[in-house]
């Protein structure tokens, strides 16, 4: 299946901003985060088709996933 993955802020560095990627059916958001070597504790917001999602949610063809880092400085 094809999933559009959008990365934001520091997650773009050394990776990409937006890509349509191929994954086996039922791949979870967590596996994509792992595959991209994004440390789980750095993940702030996950959006699946513009709705808040969790790492455990599995994906279907055509889904759009957005991954934002956790920003906490002042």
């Amino acid at each position: 299946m094809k999933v559009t993955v959008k990365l934001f802020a520091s997650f773009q560095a050394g990776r990409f901003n937006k890509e349509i990627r191929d994954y086996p059916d039922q791949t979870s958001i967590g596996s994509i985060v792992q595959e991209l070597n994004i440390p789980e504790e750095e993940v702030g917001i996950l959006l699946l088709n513009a709705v808040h999602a969790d790492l455990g949610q599995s994906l279907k063809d055509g889904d759009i996933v957005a991954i934002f880092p956790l920003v906490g400085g002042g």
Partner: protein
Amino acid sequence: MASLQTFLKEKAVGGLVSWQLQQSAAEKFQLTVAEVEIVILQAELLPARYQRNQQMISTAQQLKLLQSHVAVVGCGGLGGHIIEELARLGVGQIVAIDPDVFEEHNLNRQLLSSIELLGTSKTDAAVQRIAEINPAVRVRPINVAFGKENGRDMLKDVDLVIDAVDNVPTRLELAEVSCQLNVPLVHGAIAGWYGQVLTVYPGEDTLQKLYAKWTDGKGIEAKLGNPSFTPAVAASLQVAEACKLLLGLGGTLRKRMLSVNLLDMQFDEIPL
């Protein structure tokens, strides 16, 4: 007050009251410059310092700002810029909350820091700086860390809270206390080239949603640090939100977070 009004109206030039005139009126009538400023604005005159505010902020709105009370929690990277911008805008009462003193690693970005003030408390520096810029603004310094226990007292009577703290747990407590007190909260956070701003109205849990995945520790700022410009950008966006909330103007970042990426100059909205 009628004689003060008459005095001001006689001496004002083109509807403007110079700082010198404001000061001499305070001396003559034995009032504070803040008290005189209220009478100036009530008389539909304008302190000369606010001339360039006028195309966007009316005299009545300037009076509203002068009578507003805003808490700034954190007086570091974000907070320094926020306090200065609020004071220049003409917000009359600011509560500045921070437990820390200035250290050398603050000098790259914290507006209120200077070599001379290393070792000085950030809240005292805020009082000193604002006294130099706009003595009609009262800054109440609280040199203690904000927490759920003491927070209600710190935020007593404020119209608005601005989040300029540097860690997630304090932010969550701040959101909780602001909600209990029925006060809107303008959130800002930064890390390296990146920043984010969100406005939380009482009864909304958007900040909790934003940090729902946080378990412990810092965000990406621990790796990325903070340069001079990111706090200034995020702080200015927060003060723009604060100005609109105090005056009931425009559209705010309600239930949508603005995510700022200064490395690629991308501005994205995240629904919350």
